């Protein structure tokens, strides 16, 4: 991605995040808890769900990058996959932290051990494993290959999480926005939409920047190796 486009993306996503923060904290109406009292903690929903969607989106990028790399062996695909792995790990961590914060006042328990929660934690473990695989590999190409292979196995797990609620039930609220559901206050829909968009853009920015960083790291590594052996790379 060219510098110009990246700069525009950075500006837009940062603006978007500011807007999202304002909307989440100020704009949307305070939700009411079951007993009718205002429940400000519910606002964390506007971080929790967009983070989850961004994490899944990053896993999608990871999958495409992994398949692309295995088929073409082009560096670009691997850089995208590497960046997407770390980005999805970040957003998955946010999901796992914000979820219990929301759950404790809402349902009385921070963690309820239902399938969707467990599978998200398992996804997190898989993503961490993929980061470690790259780190433990003897050299970049090997790490890229092994991580790609794992990446292709990762997506089914994510899919399982997303359909887990429908299939296995549990306390986790079912998605109500965008499906046949009682109509919400339009501010909620707008706030949620903006937050999701902002997170997705920000996530994309992180992937791009991380990929660029990885490319630079590799170039430095090559130059250093060339200098050590006295032969031009």
């Amino acid at each position, binding site marked *: 991605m060219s510098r110009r486009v990246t700069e525009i993306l950075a500006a837009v996503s940062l603006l978007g995040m500011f807007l999202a923060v304002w909307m989440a904290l100020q704009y949307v109406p305070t939700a009411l808890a079951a007993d009718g009292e205002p429940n400000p903690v519910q606002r964390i929903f506007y971080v929790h769900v967009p983070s989850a969607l961004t994490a899944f989106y990053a896993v999608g990028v990871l999958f495409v990058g992994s398949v692309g790399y295995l088929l073409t*062996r082009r560096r670009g695909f691997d850089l995208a996959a590497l960046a997407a792995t770390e980005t999805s790990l970040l957003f998955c961590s946010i999901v796992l932290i914000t979820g219990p914060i929301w759950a404790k006042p809402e349902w009385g328990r921070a963690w309820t051990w239902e399938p969707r929660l467990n599978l998200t934690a398992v996804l997190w473990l898989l993503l961490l494993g993929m980061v470690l695989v790259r780190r433990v590999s*003897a*050299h*970049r*190409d090997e790490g890229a290959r092994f991580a790609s292979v794992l990446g292709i196995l990762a997506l089914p797990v994510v899919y399982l999480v997303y359909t887990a609620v429908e299939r296995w039930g549990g306390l986790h609220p079912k998605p109500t926005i965008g499906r046949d559901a009682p109509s919400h206050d339009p501010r909620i829909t707008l706030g949620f939409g903006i937050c999701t968009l902002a997170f997705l853009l920000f996530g994309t920015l992180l992937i791009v920047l991380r990929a660029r960083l990885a490319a630079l790291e*590799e170039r430095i*590594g*090559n130059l*250093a*190796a*060339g200098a050590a*052996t*006295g*032969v031009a*790379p």
Partner: protein
Amino acid sequence: MIEAAGIEKSFGPVRALRGVALRVAAGEIVALFGPNGAGKSTLARCLAGLSRPDAGEVRIDGERARGAAAARLRSRLGYAGHGALLYDHLSAEENLAFFAALHGVPRPQERARALLEEFGIPGRAGDALRGLSRGTQQRLALARALVHEPAILLLDEPATGLDPAAAGALHDRLNAHRQKGGCALLVSHDLPAALTLADRYIVLTSGRIGDQGPAAGADPAALAARFSGATAGARA
């Protein structure tokens, strides 16, 4: 007949092979020399199909070893490398019989026994690989490479650990192989012995082919001096 063109191979930042091209025609033995770390073993593994080159292609009997043809063409190759490519817990005979069966050799047990006799390891048929000496293991490794009577041999320092008698027997075997129309690429550090056997020699330094020429009349000492000098020059 085996040939390679434009072979590039890197391991991370290390460029092991840079644009290597060579050809070993039927009925020819080519010796491959070079300093340590030149990429000789990497090249042998690329030719054998064990290492996948980043660029370039390998052709066996004129065909690219890819896709559906790959398995069939692999059966034309015999490779012996730094590892024995054998199993510790199986006996010599079981090891050979297993690989013979895997290569589709009819009556693998018989073939295994015949090879053991040919390579001088008969009394050891029942012993597990672990109990065998280094030299015996090496002879067994060579036997394994030849179990399916391949036309193209890729041997990476095959004489390592062999006593003079066994090394001589290997030379005779390779001569016979050449006479039957087979070809071989021989990676070696023993220049005089290899030059006696080979038709041509190739020198690999820092992943590139440098010197090459007919083996007849080549002076081992001068050759060695040149490619050691070549490495020193590149570092300067």
